[in-house]
């Protein structure tokens, strides 16, 4: 029996889809059978980020509407055998699916997959309610910005009200230099307000832009720091204790030289 995890945030653009794609890919790369479900109906992105948009024949609304079976709609990832995607519809909107239908769908997917990860749309309305309906656990993604934290807090309150207790936090797009300068919220400030367990921290990284555009999740890239961060998060999800990534960017050779000479 698998586990259904919803990745949500409240605020848009903080990295839910990127996180869903990378955690799913990371788990599949370690040999697990994973299904990713895009519930952002009307504004689907998960297929693009995984590079699978050309392979979509059926989508989630076809499954819930009885047009096809789940197996027909699931798309196998082009790199990893264990990873599958159930895409959203692009020509409909979030009223096309109901929470009850989502519950039934998640129940069915749990039979076959070890992990079912649901990419939740931004907001707190129908799309959000659909996404959390079948979930066992939740991951809340936020960025170190006051507005994002405000929305994350709202979402955590709504998750608690829906009895999805103990959500885990991922802080995305953090810039250690700005945190040190006092221009950006630090990890402790955010946990002070949100008061949930931290699953991981991902540094701001240009590679994310490059890899999402290419449709190759950054978790597979061995060089980038964000890829390493996502790999760590994947291992933590599997129960391993992984120390937090050292986010201090050394700034290359000259950065290290400056540090040795005592300059900033």
């Amino acid at each position, binding site marked *: 029996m698998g586990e259904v995890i919803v990745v949500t945030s409240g605020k848009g653009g903080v990295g839910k889809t990127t996180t869903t794609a990378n955690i799913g890919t990371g788990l599949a790369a370690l040999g697990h059978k994973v299904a990713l479900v895009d519930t952002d109906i009307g504004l689907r992105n998960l297929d693009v980020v995984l590079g699978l948009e050309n392979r979509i024949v059926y989508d989630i609304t076809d499954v819930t509407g009885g047009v096809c079976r789940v197996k027909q709609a699931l798309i196998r990832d082009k790199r990893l055998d264990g990873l599958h995607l159930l895409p959203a519809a692009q020509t409909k909107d979030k009223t096309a699916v109901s929470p009850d239908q989502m519950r039934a769908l998640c129940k069915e997917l749990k039979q076959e997959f070890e992990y079912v990860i649901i990419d939740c749309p931004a907001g707190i309305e129908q799309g959000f309610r659909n996404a959390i309906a079948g979930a066992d656990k939740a991951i809340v993604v936020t960025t170190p910005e006051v507005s994002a934290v*405000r*929305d994350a807090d709202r979402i*955590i309150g709504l998750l608690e009200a829906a009895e999805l207790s103990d959500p885990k936090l991922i802080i995305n797009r953090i810039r250690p230099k700005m945190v040190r300068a006092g221009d950006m919220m630090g990890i402790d400030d955010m946990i002070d*307000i949100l008061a949930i367990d931290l699953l991981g921290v991902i540094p701001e990284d240009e590679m994310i832009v490059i890899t999402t555009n290419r449709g190759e999740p950054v978790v597979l890239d061995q060089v980038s720091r964000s890829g390493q961060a996502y790999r760590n998060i994947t291992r933590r999800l599997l129960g391993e204790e992984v120390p937090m990534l050292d986010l201090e960017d050394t700034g290359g050779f000259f950065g290290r030289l400056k540090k040795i000479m005592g300059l900033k």
Partner: protein
Amino acid sequence: MTYLKRDARDEIFSGFSHGDLEGIIDENTILVQRTLRSGQSIRYDGNVVVLGDVNPGAEVAAAGNVVVMGALRGMVHAGAGGDENAIVMSFRLQPTQLRIANHITRPPDNEALEVDRPEIARIKDGVVTIEAVSTGSERQAKVT
């Protein structure tokens, strides 16, 4: 030792004068035993005590007084029915907006509120003022 219910008021309090009881005791109080998250709100016709934080985006409105035993970062309205004697007290008073009766106030622009001690807000001379809560030892130091 037996603990008595609310209606046995004269027996609950011992060592007080009868006149004291009228002015001091306000039994219309609720205790909220958790932090309020953004979007959650409490509206009560009496006093509200919160054992936790009030996060930004959360609201507490009370006809009486509001005591937050944590960080008050959201919106608070004491004396919501018009009582200008109502107070707001918090361990860390950093509200987005603070209202007492018909007075609405907010923290000064461009200043990050750095608070490290409990503070109490009340109306004094027609204006909402915020003071540190002085403990017994501080009061003693002032005298000597």
